């Protein structure tokens, strides 16, 4: 992918023809990575702002409005302040692991951005194992969180880390199983392929969400399990402020804490993006074939649509957070193993049978074919 981009770049700009291809490829890689990272950081910053505004709105207050116009620069102030804070490593902490943990969490969360299909051609790397890659790379988060909890040498942090590990590992199972229907329908693990499989001019009825009853359920199962995987309310027990003070990052200050903070918002986006790509038609614009448009317009449209869908889901997460109370740890585990896992499993079975029986056709397509 990168290579082809580099080739086309070299072809387009004759002045670059003297540069060896590998240099160009590397350059393109760096630039793409920088773009994705910039987007991710900018998004995370703005998301914190929006979260506070949403919270304010729900709670009958205003939220930040003094720092910059409408308080929009709040995240900048927070970020720079955290960057300039004293860096504390507790004396009894395991220094190396303590320092490593936030980066692991951050990488685990932001590396997943690589395969997010932002638009028709806007994907950093269209891996043919996209879904699998996201699941695998986001598991790094568990390692990081556990290390953070363990290395802090603080009992609250340890409890938080253990809770997080148990929770994320448990919910990884239903998350994966709930995503599989989309994979089955598309017949590919590549996210771009999954999005393409939901195209057609059926409008929103091309989406996997409406493919059959099982996928419909799957979406909600995925969203619920994903909420738990990102440690958001009502499943935010690893950081449960009123129980564990701040959970696994209780000892972290300054920029290291900022990494955890960013990672949380990164995670939120990744799971929302995954839900969008797998169930909500990804970057497909209803009644418009984005791929048929000129490249620039097609990308722009599809990017806008994709972000709108994904950020809408992020917003929903915020809404849920400020509305619901928190589950207890045993209830959380019970919910995963006793309810979500069996249901997702049967759901998967149902989708497979459906595909077998109806030769891969979804309900909307069947209805459409009735009317010719």
């Amino acid at each position, binding site marked *: 992918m990168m290579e082809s981009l580099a080739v086309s770049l070299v072809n387009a700009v004759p002045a670059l023809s003297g540069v060896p291809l590998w240099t160009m490829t590397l350059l393109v890689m760096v630039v793409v990575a920088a773009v994705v990272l910039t987007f991710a950081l900018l998004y995370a910053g703005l998301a914190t702002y929006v979260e506070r505004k949403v*919270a304010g709105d*729900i*709670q*009958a*207050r205003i939220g930040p409005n003094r720092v910059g116009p409408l308080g929009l620069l709040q995240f900048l102030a927070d970020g720079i302040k955290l960057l300039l804070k004293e860096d504390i490593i507790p004396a009894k902490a395991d220094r190396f692991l303590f320092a490593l943990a936030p980066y692991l969490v951050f990488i685990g969360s932001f590396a997943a951005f690589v395969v997010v299909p932002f638009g028709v051609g806007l994907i950093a790397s269209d891996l043919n194992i996209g879904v699998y890659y996201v699941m695998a790379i986001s598991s790094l988060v568990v390692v990081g969180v556990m290390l953070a909890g363990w290395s802090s040498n603080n*009992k*609250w942090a340890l*409890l938080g880390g*253990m*809770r997080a590990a148990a929770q994320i590992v448990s919910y990884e199972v239903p998350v994966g199983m709930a995503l599989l229907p989309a994979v089955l329908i598309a017949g590919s693990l590549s996210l771009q392929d999954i999005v393409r499989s939901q195209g057609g001019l059926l409008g929103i009825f091309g989406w996997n969400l409406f493919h059959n009853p099982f996928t419909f359920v799957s979406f909600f199962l995925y969203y619920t399990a994903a909420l738990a995987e990102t440690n958001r*309310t*009502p499943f*935010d*027990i690893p950081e*449960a*402020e*009123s*129980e*564990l*003070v701040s959970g696994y990052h209780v000892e972290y200050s300054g920029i290291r804490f900022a990494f955890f903070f960013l990672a949380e918002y990164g995670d939120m986006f990744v799971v929302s993006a995954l839900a969008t790509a797998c169930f909500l038609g990804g970057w497909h614009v209803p009644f418009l074939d984005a791929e048929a448009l000129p490249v620039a317009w097609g990308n722009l449209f599809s990017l806008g649509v994709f972000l709108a869908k994904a950020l809408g889901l992020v917003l929903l997460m915020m809404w849920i957070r*400020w*509305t*619901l*109370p*928190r*589950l*207890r*740890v*045993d*209830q959380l585990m019970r919910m995963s193993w006793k309810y979500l896992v069996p249901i997702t499993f049967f759901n998967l079975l149902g989708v497979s049978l459906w595909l077998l029986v109806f030769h891969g056709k979804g309900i909307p397509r069947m209805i459409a074919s009735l009317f010719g």
Partner: protein
Amino acid sequence: MKARAEALPTQEMLINMGPQHPSTHGVLRVILRTDGEVVVNARPDVGYLHRALEKIGERVTYAQFMPFTDRLDYLASMNCNAAWAWTVEKLAGIEVPERAEYIRVIVCELNRISSHLIAFGSFTADMGAFTPFLYAIRERERINDLFEDICGNRLTYNYVRIGGVSADLPDRFLEKTKEFLDYFEPKIPEYNKLISYNKIFVHRLANVAAISGGEAVAYGLTGPNLRGSGVSFDLRRSEPYSVYPKLDFDVCVGTGERGTVGDCFDRYMVRINEMRESVKILRQAIAQIPGGPVMAKVPRAFKPPVGEVYFRAENPRGETGIYLISDGTVNPYRLKLRAPSFVTMNIFEKVTKGLMIADIVAVIGSFDIILPEIDR
């Protein structure tokens, strides 16, 4: 399976919860011994806010102690003010004008609502739902406004005085109170819809730390905590004082509607229902309040006769008892404050055995403790 569990020795963990912890409602410290997430033993360690109110009481005059009662339970200052006034009046045999008694009841019930609002709000915040807390504060601010009209302060009022109240109600106060009640009454079902019957919330509270009626009495629980265990005992009804006999209200008790009687949910619901009863009392009191003076004649150098008196009043957190010994001088000889939260903490260690860490927070919240009362 069991054999394997034995082969793996697990260590108990000693965790220190507080005195600085977001949900210990102040500076309570709980020393937790846990086996993983399960609490083996939770021992409360109090006294981080011991401000020596009883010693101060022996060194100031009767009237001067009034501001300190504000700080005994700052969420229910009016009730504490009134309890002190009633105690001293009982000791000295002072007749208080009826209008003053009505005013006291009005401000006490308003304060009960605002105290229960904080109890409701902080409890839900402890359960992870932060939003109801802000709604509770929103309503509470309106009560604060009313009290500000009366006495100029938002939290510590020093409004009730020995022999009456410091000043008559300001203009339009009763109308404003009525407006507030009209505004507030529909909010209670709203809270219930928002959080009380939320499935997660109910699951977190039902059957957690259930206390039987007999146990509650033996451990000296009072107020909503006692009534949550199904014991219908309210001092306003059982040992009526002031003008409460003239007012009609129900005593709310726990019914075990979502679990066992006396669990955290029952204690929570008793408070929600009591707010409704307080609204009822307020409406009657506003309708009945007579005219007249608001202060009895009390000499400046007030010296009550020698004697000992124990008076108790139904405050939002339970029975606030004051044991007052007078030696005939201007200062109280001995002043014992029997604070409901302090006695309630006694049962804490017993009911938290075998719960999970998250339940500890629920139990603390459901007891609605307040630290200055525990530590005084």
